[in-house]
């Protein structure tokens, strides 16, 4: 019971209105440019004059027109904006394929130590031996967890790692005189980045259909293999949340045909410490440090995508990399022979290396394996609780870290998967991944991760079941109007794409354009 200013308990009064929705704490925040102006600033700097500038007559004439805020205004603007965001710290993200696990704050604290945050990528190597040691230790953990021969740390994100891995494959084949191989096999269930990466490097993409059980048939791979095939890009566990049971046979078939096995490691979280991908025959695999090793997603990056490489590809690793020598650790910055050059300016995402290694040391070998097992346990628990109502397209084997459902339970209800997801928002949960993987019509992919307690999983499952029975009972309006409890109602994305407004303009500019 709340207290009024006189200290007497207040009642609820005689108010008759709609249920509380928290809107009082969810402001409509104007844009930075509508609050600040070009005179205000939140930074005190001396106003120096320069007797003889060396700008060569290239001084700025175009007005900057950048709005400034004083410190209290900035603090409030960004705090108020932040309150319009869902986050893993405030609730579960059952986003299949995205691995939204807890982000430990020790990681953040360590990444901010001046010895990591305040060092320059080009200062003398003798002054950054601790940074090189950290990279060396991270590399050791990644190679040990995957049983591979080398790791290229520098890719900036998973898709960048894919690019690097496929570049290494291309370089290896060119070195063998097999540059004519122009086809990459990609199962239909693959992430969109896989075919995009292959096409980027000039490969044509050949799709491998999925079996009725959601996995890839080694026979289909064998049939697709030819002397023109450079590689297969296979996700394992796959995007249906299933471990590929024939992965070793697939690797052997691919190698027998002279091709390479690129493994999309987006789902390594399910098997870290339990299965070493090197034992499955992979040649290259990127590891999303922001998924498997708990570095924050930050509202869409930065990620980090180190790539582990088999002995066959190790000689093609890009620069820079750390090398142990008698006099200490060295940074090899220039490539030789057939090796790849540089794929980014400096050493990669050092800030993420610190966070990932901190996480690995915290969990340890035993903890990482337990985390993978708990992730799989949680997904199977959700599957077990929901499968009486939600249809499971591939029921034959237990799922790994994510449970795939389809929307056939919504047939004839008039409620779409998207409507269902938006209704989940009204119940306080971020939606699951929808319409992916493409091999399942109306896919709903739920990845709880190991971070969720049984209590949270039960709450989530209760809400899912409640919504499903609502939909089946024909309470369509709750779905079609959803969300109503979020800071915004359903957004008009078509309008945004038809006549894009991609920046703020002063009103006079907007009205001029309209005329």
């Amino acid at each position, binding site marked *: 019971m709340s207290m009024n200013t006189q200290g007497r308990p207040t009642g609820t009064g005689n108010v008759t209105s709609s249920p509380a929705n928290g809107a009082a704490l969810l402001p409509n925040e104007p844009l930075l440019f509508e609050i600040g102006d070009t*005179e205000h600033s939140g930074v005190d700097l001396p106003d120096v004059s320069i007797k003889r500038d060396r700008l060569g007559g290239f001084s700025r004439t*175009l007005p900057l027109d950048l709005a400034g805020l004083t410190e209290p205004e900035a603090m409030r603007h960004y705090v108020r904006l932040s309150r319009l965001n869902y986050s893993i710290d405030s609730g579960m993200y059952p986003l299949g394929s995205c691995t939204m696990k807890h982000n430990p704050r020790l990681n953040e604290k360590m990444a901010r130590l001046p010895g990591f945050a305040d060092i320059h*990528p080009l200062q003398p190597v003798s002054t950054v031996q601790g940074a090189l040691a950290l990279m060396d230790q991270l590399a050791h953990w990644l190679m040990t967890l995957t049983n591979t021969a080398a790791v290229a740390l520098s890719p900036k994100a998973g898709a960048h790692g894919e690019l690097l891995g496929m570049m290494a494959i291309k370089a290896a084949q060119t070195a063998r005189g097999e540059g004519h191989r122009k086809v990459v096999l990609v199962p239909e269930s693959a992430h969109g980045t896989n075919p995009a990466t292959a096409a980027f490097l000039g490969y044509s993409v050949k799709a491998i259909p999925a079996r009725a059980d959601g996995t890839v048939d080694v026979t289909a791979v064998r049939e697709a293999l030819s002397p023109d095939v450079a590689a297969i890009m296979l996700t394992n566990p796959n995007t249906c949340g299933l471990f590929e*049971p024939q992965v070793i046979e697939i690797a052997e078939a691919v190698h027998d045909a002279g091709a390479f096995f690129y493994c999309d490691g987006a789902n390594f979280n399910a098997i870290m410490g339990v299965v070493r991908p090197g034992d499955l025959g992979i040649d290259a695999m990127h590891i999303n440090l922001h998924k498997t090793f708990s570095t924050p997603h930050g*509202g869409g990056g930065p990620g980090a995508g180190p790539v582990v490489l088999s002995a066959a590809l190790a000689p093609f690793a890009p620069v820079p990399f750390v090398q142990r020598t008698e006099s200490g650790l060295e940074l090899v910055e220039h490539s030789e022979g057939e090796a790849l050059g540089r794929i980014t*300016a400096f050493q990669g995402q050092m800030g993420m290396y610190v966070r990932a290694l901190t996480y690995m040391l915290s969990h340890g070998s035993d903890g990482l394996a337990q*985390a993978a097992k708990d992730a799989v346990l949680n997904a199977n628990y959700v599957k077990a609780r929901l499968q009486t109502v939600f249809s499971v397209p591939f029921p034959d084997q237990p799922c790994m870290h994510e449970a795939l459902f389809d929307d056939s339970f919504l047939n004839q209800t008039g409620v779409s998967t998207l409507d269902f997801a938006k209704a989940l928002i009204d119940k306080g949960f*971020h939606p699951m991944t929808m319409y992916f993987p493409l091999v399942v019509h109306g896919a709903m992919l739920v990845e709880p991760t190991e971070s969720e307690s049984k209590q949270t999983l039960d709450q989530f499952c209760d809400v899912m079941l409640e919504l499903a029975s609502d939909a089946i009972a024909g309470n369509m309006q709750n779905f079609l109007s959803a969300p109503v409890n979020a800071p915004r109602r359903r957004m008009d994305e078509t309008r945004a*794409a038809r006549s894009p407004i991609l920046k703020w303009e002063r009103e006079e500019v907007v009205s001029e354009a309209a005329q």
Partner: protein
Amino acid sequence: MRYLPHSDAERADMLAAIGAPSIEALFGAVPAKALQSESLDLPDHSPEFLVEAHMRGLAGQNHAAADGPFFVGAGAYRHHVPATVDHLIQRSEWLTAYTPYQPEISQGTLQMLFEFQTQVAKLTGMDVANASLYDGSTGTAEAVLMARRLTRRTKVLLSGGLHPHYRDVVCGYLKDDADLICLDASPEGQGDILDRIDDQTAAIVVQTPDFYGHLRNIQTAADAAHAKGALLIVVVTEIVSLGLLEAPGAYGADIVVAEGQSIGNALNFGGPYLGLMATRQQFVRQMPGRLCGETVDADGQRGFVLTLSTREQHIRREKATSNICTNSGLCALAFSIHLGLLGEAGLVKLARLNHARACALADALGTVKGVELLNATFFNEMTIRLPVAAEPVVAQLAKKGILAGVPVSRLERGRPELDNLLVLAATELTTDADITALIAALEEVLP
């Protein structure tokens, strides 16, 4: 195992609900020979204080920029970041949010990106900017590919003033591409590119201030490129410079790529950084990376969404403009907050202060016997020619606790004519005492 919520009893309850005898049974699809049977040769879990001690031990072996006089630049710059920035970006709702694919519960991130895009467009003087790329170097490679798509031509010229790492990244992306022409290093700031443009040229790539610190005449480059139907890609590695220098858009740039690290982001030994990309309105559908746009919700309220995603890999797969699937969100947030705190007034002061410190450094270097300053123009960075090779000099100064800059030979190997060159940067953090210490040390070690 402090990050794992389950007790053994809860695990048992859950297994019972699943109907599985053990967690291991859930891994039944894994071929038996691939299951890890022995423990890995890695340590077991560790308490927070021991992990922290280990990490502090590693960090302590590094010489942080703040530990002494510091003149290292060459594509990454040490600037002051207000405490407010780092506090705000660590708020849960920013740090631990996912990509804003559900706009109704991601308006914070989306509005911030819209503000960020506006700031970048204004700073560069361009029509539109995207929601950021990995960093300046990969952004340059993406810009080259974008120009090829736009012009349907393939020849690309990279100026000798382009950061050598950026050049190497473009070469890496376009391996063995005969139509990619990298011009020789131009440490004197000499023009090298204009007479190489022909009507097969898709784009020229020019950096300003260039790698050696010289300010380049972008207007001349734009005119020469446009006369042949080629595009001008302008690269900026020190974004603070645009507080004082003319916006590339005002000179006719077609695509601007920049490294945004200098505003809001720490040095971090090279990453994560922040790629900025801006272009003309008519080119936006060929621009890679995420874009945030304004729209309304079902009640007509203004709101923001990711838009034009038909360019992107998750929709277009092999026909996408790029395979990129992230931006550099948190770095973009730090940039946007810092630039919001600066505002126009603050950015101009910051840029002027940087230039003033660099002028002081240049004047001081000019007094050292045997040192030749190569720059007639610069913003906050310059190149000197020493009477001896630069790398050992830098090593000697490092032993004295002075980080004196970047020897060009570290980036350009096998080019003896560049061995004596040293690139030095000054920022608002460079003090008179730092400069005095550098000069004294140089005079001591130079012959």
